[in-house]
């Protein structure tokens, strides 16, 4: 049981390249499920490999359970890792795969056997599977064996590098909840890397959003959704993505599609202080409602994506032809070509600096 701490951890791959991980400061609590999320190239996997000891640090340090492990080899860090492609030893049986680390630790055969069986039971792996080779298993089973190999070690920290990305959509959703549930049960500190913001939101106690090697925000999923610190986090978290539009400022608000969208006084003040003539506003699709009464925006529906429970409307706004996505109930959605009026939940409109992307107070 241990927490993990990154202190100004930095990793540079090439002389002329920007750092893959740039001065990462992150404090992960004991027993916490921490998700590192970001687009490809954001440095999330490198950050995980720094913790595993598979990459050396070019600056800063990494601690596990209060111990500086910067120069400790991977095997002595008391961690276990689940790889994206599972990295099961192809010539070993499932049981040998799961017990390999224990064998290296010279754990007695009986004890090894007991722990392998226990992990297999925990993961619903049949006893008959234990004698098979990885090649004879389905993708889902391989994934569970990889999990089992990590569990058997009873490590201080689990590291998971996109462990669900090779599963089909249905299995991924199912396994997602299983892993989260298992982690809660075992209470082992877990660092989980994914590019999928849905995984990040549903699994993590906290989520760290990375981009271009930098940590942008680390908070609970709810906080990330309600209170993103900048335009990148706002656009990355939430599905479908937030509608972001650069709009000119006018008295009392922002001009969008020929209408004036009123903005809170705090935002106007902040924009005024920064001397801005335009800003970026963000509206989540779920905060735009089709209405029969008066609304802030009107436009023409050009595409309807029916998801069953709800539908996504792609609406073209007049003047500039900008498009926004609105989420509406699946029952009888408008049809393409139809004119609609959208009511905007003004309390939930975000405003960002057009250059730095930083959130403007509001």
């Amino acid at each position, binding site marked *: 049981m241990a927490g993990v701490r990154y202190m100004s951890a930095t990793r540079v791959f090439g002389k002329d390249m920007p750092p893959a991980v740039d001065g990462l400061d992150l404090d992960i609590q004991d027993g916490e499920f921490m998700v590192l999320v970001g687009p490809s190239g954001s440095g999330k996997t490198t950050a995980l490999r720094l913790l*595993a000891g*598979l990459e050396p640090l070019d600056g800063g340090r990494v601690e596990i359970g209060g111990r500086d492990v910067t120069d400790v*080899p*991977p*095997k002595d860090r008391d*961690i*276990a*890792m689940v*790889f*994206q*492609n599972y*990295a099961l*030893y*192809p*010539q*070993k049986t499932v049981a040998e795969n799961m017990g*390999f*680390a224990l064998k*290296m*630790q010279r754990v007695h055969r009986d004890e090894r056997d007991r722990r392998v069986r226990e992990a297999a039971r925990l993961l619903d792996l049949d006893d008959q599977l234990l004698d098979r080779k990885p090649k004879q298993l389905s993708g889902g089973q391989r994934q569970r064996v990889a999990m089992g*190999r990590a569990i058997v070690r009873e490590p201080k920290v689990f590291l998971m590098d996109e462990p669900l990305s090779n599963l089909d959509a249905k299995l991924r959703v199912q396994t997602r909840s299983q892993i989260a549930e298992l982690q809660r049960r075992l209470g082992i500190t877990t660092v989980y890397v994914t590019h999928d913001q849905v995984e990040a939101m549903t699994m993590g106690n906290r989520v760290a959003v990375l981009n271009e090697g930098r940590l942008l925000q680390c908070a609970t999923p709810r906080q990330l959704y309600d209170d993103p610190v900048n335009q990148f986090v706002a656009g990355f978290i939430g599905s479908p993505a937030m509608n972001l539009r650069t709009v000119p400022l006018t008295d009392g608000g922002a001009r969008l599609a020929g209408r004036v969208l009123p903005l809170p006084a705090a935002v106007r003040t902040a924009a005024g202080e920064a001397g801005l003539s335009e800003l970026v506003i963000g509206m989540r699709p779920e905060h735009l409602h089709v209405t029969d009464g008066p609304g802030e925006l009107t436009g023409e529906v050009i595409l309807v994506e029916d998801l069953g429970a709800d539908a996504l409307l792609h609406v073209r706004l007049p003047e500039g032809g900008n498009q926004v996505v609105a989420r509406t109930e699946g029952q009888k959605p408008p049809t393409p070509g139809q004119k609609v009026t959208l009511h905007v939940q003004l309390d939930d409109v975000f405003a960002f600096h057009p250059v730095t992307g930083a959130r403007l107070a509001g």
Partner: protein
Amino acid sequence: MTALSLRPGPRRFRQWSGRAGWAVLAWVVAIAFFIPVLWMVITAFKPESAAETWPPQFIFTPTLSEFRLAVSGMGPFLTHSVLATVGSTVLVLLLGIPAAYALSVHPVKHWRDGLFFFISTKMLPIVAAIGPLYVIALHAHLLDSIWLLIILYTAMNLPLAIWMIRSFMLEVPSELLEAARLDGAGRIREIGSVILPIVSPGLVSTALICVIFAWNELFLAINLTVTNAATLPMFLISSVPQEGLFIAHLCAAATIASVPVIVVGWIAQRSLVRGLSMGAIK
């Protein structure tokens, strides 16, 4: 309707005739390669009197007399060949595996230079080295010794073996090696438990190629050995008659000398194909 269903006819015929053409060509090439071998085997079963007739006779009473004659003198040559081949192949693998590892999985400094050096040793014609080799062997008291052949065949096959094994090792996914590192495997375990099981088909094909090269080697053997270490190819040379033609006898000896290579190749056929195409399929 009928017109429509008939239309693919000519195309199908073209496809068929194209395939048949390639098949015929493949057979012609294969037979062209095989005929000398077939002729050798057939002649080996002929009595000496029937071997030299022209045009060649295809109907004759097969006899094993030439084989008996060949086998009678072959004993020590065969032993030397087996010792030199097996000994050098084992040594090649023992040295080649760690060397390939140090040039691929955990590359040492200047690994490119090392790799190039290994292959550059194959560029010099062996004739150019035979003089110095002879002098060294003379002073090391290794002339006409089986140990000399084992050492030289090891040196001869090692560069190729290192290149082959290295390319197989590069195929091992890096995540597997990382998983092994996290699991606490040291270098020896990493090689023994993770890498070798995966590259084993490649090792088999490497070993097989070393066996074939060492088994067939003549130049070094004929220049550096006389009797104590003379190998099977030298026996074949000695079967080439000085006066008169004893073709059936020569063919019988050559057939016997070819059998081990053919048998080993046959047995290792599957892993040979797998090993040689290891880089091709993912």
